[in-house]
């Protein structure tokens, strides 16, 4: 249990998707103009990461990893399909996103109207594919750990985008040098937020 809590905290604060690895920066910059839309986008990311990472974990464990196919027959002990992981992961992500979109549309129109427009964007959000690739690289030992890692990364991304959106809403009242307005100042503020988040780096979990 403590192990899981550690993974959760670590993926939110120490290995934050945005500040430590710059994943999902494109949508982070494009959608952070108001707090309301960024909450929607952040929630959609938590949701999709929480679903795709366990799926890709199973894929990795039972199909792609070297010797993963032994559950079919011992002849496959030397088969290593990991070079296919990019295309398999992205296919899983794209189809799950499509599926989730259809399910939400059918069962919860109100959730669909708030999350719906963001879901297609998420298929090409690098935070999602990045999450799966990090999961593969770090070798989590059980599906529960992988799910917790996915949710934690999503929450970290959510915090980052809501934080920057709140700052951007306020900065509209300040006198920023014209050439720095918009994109430039957003980068620099993100950098400063990143420095703040670095203070978590010393924590050993």
């Amino acid at each position: 249990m403590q192990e899981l809590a550690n993974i959760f905290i670590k993926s939110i604060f120490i290995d934050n998707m945005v500040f430590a690895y710059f994943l999902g920066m494109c949508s982070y910059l494009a959608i952070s103009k108001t707090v309301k839309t960024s909450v929607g986008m952040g929630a959609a990311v938590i949701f999709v990461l929480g679903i795709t990472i366990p799926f890709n974990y199973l894929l990795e464990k039972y199909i792609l990893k070297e010797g993963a196919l032994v559950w079919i027959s011992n002849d496959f002990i030397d088969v290593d399909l990991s070079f296919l992981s990019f295309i398999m992961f992205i296919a899983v992500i794209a189809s799950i996103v499509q599926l989730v979109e259809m399910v939400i549309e059918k069962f919860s129109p109100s959730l669909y109207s708030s999350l719906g427009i963001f879901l297609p964007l998420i298929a090409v959000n690098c935070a999602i594919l990045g999450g799966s690739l990090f999961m593969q690289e770090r070798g989590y030992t059980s599906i529960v750990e992988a799910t917790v890692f996915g949710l934690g990364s999503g929450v970290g991304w959510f915090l980052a985008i809501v934080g920057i959106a709140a700052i951007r809403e306020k900065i509209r009242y300040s006198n920023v040098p014209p050439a720095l307005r918009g994109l430039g100042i957003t980068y620099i503020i993100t950098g400063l937020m990143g420095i703040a988040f670095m203070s978590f780096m010393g924590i050993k979990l």
Partner: protein
Amino acid sequence: MSKNSFLSKKNKMLLSDPLDDNNPITVQVLGICSALAITVQLKPAVVMALSVLVVLSVANVVVSLMRKMIPSRIRIIVFLVVIATLVILVDQVLKAFVYDVSKELSVFVGLIITNCIICGRLEAFAMANPPGKAFLDGLGNSFGYGIILIIVAFFRELLGAGTLFGYPVLEKLGVYDLGYENNGMMILPPMALVTVGVLIWWQRARNEKLIENE
């Protein structure tokens, strides 16, 4: 297509525009994730820029050849399949020939798939233009991407570690004897953001039509 029309003024614009006025990173806001993460040193930045060059120009041509056959509803999936196939090829080549750099780039080679610069150009350009033009657009945009990568990596490696391509430039110049110290901050992730922010500032101060009015 005769050679003359291929290098017409309009086609030259396709190559030169993304270098400055329509730069993918600083103006179109595409492909930022990878640009920031792998610019600690020049070598991985150059390798990354070359990989994107290959993937983007080939994907642009392939999608442009198929543009009349792709149903618009499933075009994103088609894009992803084309890109993912190319990225697997690039990844295998990198692993075979420059293994150490490939290890350093870790997940970011795979993330070329979701690099929005590629999806963005396929969607905005390759779906509506013939292969020749699409190829030029791919080249132009990858140069625009590469140039920012190399500028950022140049400053981060020089100021952060005092080297260029691993060669200890500052030590040979004898700057350390004057009491200069490396700025370790430059190597850490947040300074990549600040470096790009300053780059954008400089570009917009020089080119006023790019200034945003919020």
